[in-house]
């Protein structure tokens, strides 16, 4: 069997003994969890392109094939954890921006930085090349969101009009005081907390409740976290290649069922809230 199932090569799963027919039925069922009028745009807020240090990988052509197969209009993409010899992500950022230039109506490029590693130069280069936002990973790059270095980077991104997407999933540190401190330092910042803030959702949701510039993305999030915030504070995401479209669509569809979102709310979660921040997909 050709193509992909649950984000994996179907032929590989079949060779491993999977019942690909059953998996295909499950995948179709999962996609049907999202009930929206035809033509409602869907934009993925969270995709990694490249080859991560942990072995996960995704190429731009494979991403676009995934988008096509799942009726997803576009994706925000940024580098995997491949900072390069200089530690500044410049090569990885360049590759993502080139991928977006190849698929301008499907891929929105964000750059990725280490706030402690020549961030000004890397951000300027990415901005000049066409980046439209910033991804930061406090766990992988070992910094604190409320640190002076991170505040400086978020302030610079905000001055460029960029949203900043933070990893906010698995990790030991409390997130509430960290992001409250960041928002206090850069009040006009626009922050996307990945994974629904799963690492410390209750605290971070409470600490940021009054801040208008905050979205949670739904990638690999926890259902109780998603249904406990208003849909206008959510953005659909997958965390490809760590997550997949069937599971991600099933999650937001199930959240809609539990929380009672109407189709307008669902449309806002699937694309509207994010597009309000980044503008049209094709610049």
């Amino acid at each position, binding site marked *: 069997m050709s193509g992909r199932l649950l*984000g994996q090569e179907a032929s590989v799963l079949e060779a*491993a003994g999977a019942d690909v027919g059953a998996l295909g039925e499950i995948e179709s*069922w999962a996609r049907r969890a999202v009930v929206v009028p035809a033509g409602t745009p869907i934009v993925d807020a969270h995709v990694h392109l490249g080859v991560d240090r942990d072995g996960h990988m995704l190429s731009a052509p494979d991403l676009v094939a995934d988008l096509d197969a799942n009726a997803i209009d576009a994706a925000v993409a940024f580098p995997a954890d491949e900072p390069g010899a200089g530690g500044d992500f410049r090569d990885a950022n360049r590759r993502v921006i080139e991928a977006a230039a190849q698929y301008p109506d499907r891929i929105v490029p964000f750059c990725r930085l280490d706030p402690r590693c020549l961030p000004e130069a890397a951000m300027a280069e990415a901005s000049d090349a066409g980046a439209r936002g910033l991804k930061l990973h406090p766990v992988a790059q070992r910094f604190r969101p409320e640190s002076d270095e991170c505040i400086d980077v978020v302030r610079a991104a905000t001055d460029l009009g960029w949203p900043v997407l933070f990893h906010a999933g698995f990790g030991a540190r409390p997130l509430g005081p960290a992001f409250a401190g960041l928002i206090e330092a850069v009040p006009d910042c626009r922050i996307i907390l990945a994974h629904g803030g799963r690492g410390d959702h209750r605290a971070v949701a409470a600490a940021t409740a009054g801040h208008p510039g905050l979205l949670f993305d739904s990638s690999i999030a926890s*259902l*109780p976290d998603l249904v406990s915030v208003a849909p206008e504070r959510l953005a659909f995401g997958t965390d490809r290649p760590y*997550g997949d479209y069937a599971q991600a669509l099933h999650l937001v569809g199930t959240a809609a069922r539990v929380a009672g979102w109407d189709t307008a709310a669902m449309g806002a979660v699937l694309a509207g809230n994010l597009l309000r921040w980044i503008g049209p997909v094709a610049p």
Partner: protein
Amino acid sequence: MSLLDALRVVGLASQAEMALVRRDAVAGALLAQAARAAEGTPAGPLLSEAARLERAEPGREAVRQAALSLCRMGLQEAQADALGHPAGGVP
């Protein structure tokens, strides 16, 4: 499903999810337990297929990731059930 039964599946599926993320060999056993606990519920077919896949070829990356996707969907269904919103149908 009663709240007690739903919470049992949520607990088992959550443990299985983390074991799969960490590539821990205990994932297969935890998925099998979760699948048995979820029999007859919307989460059941998802967790059963995840357990079957992981048993078929543990350690293969594509299999692990597909099992993880199924496990997470099973967990999501069990959580929805615990929150009072069971699915109307099963996959």
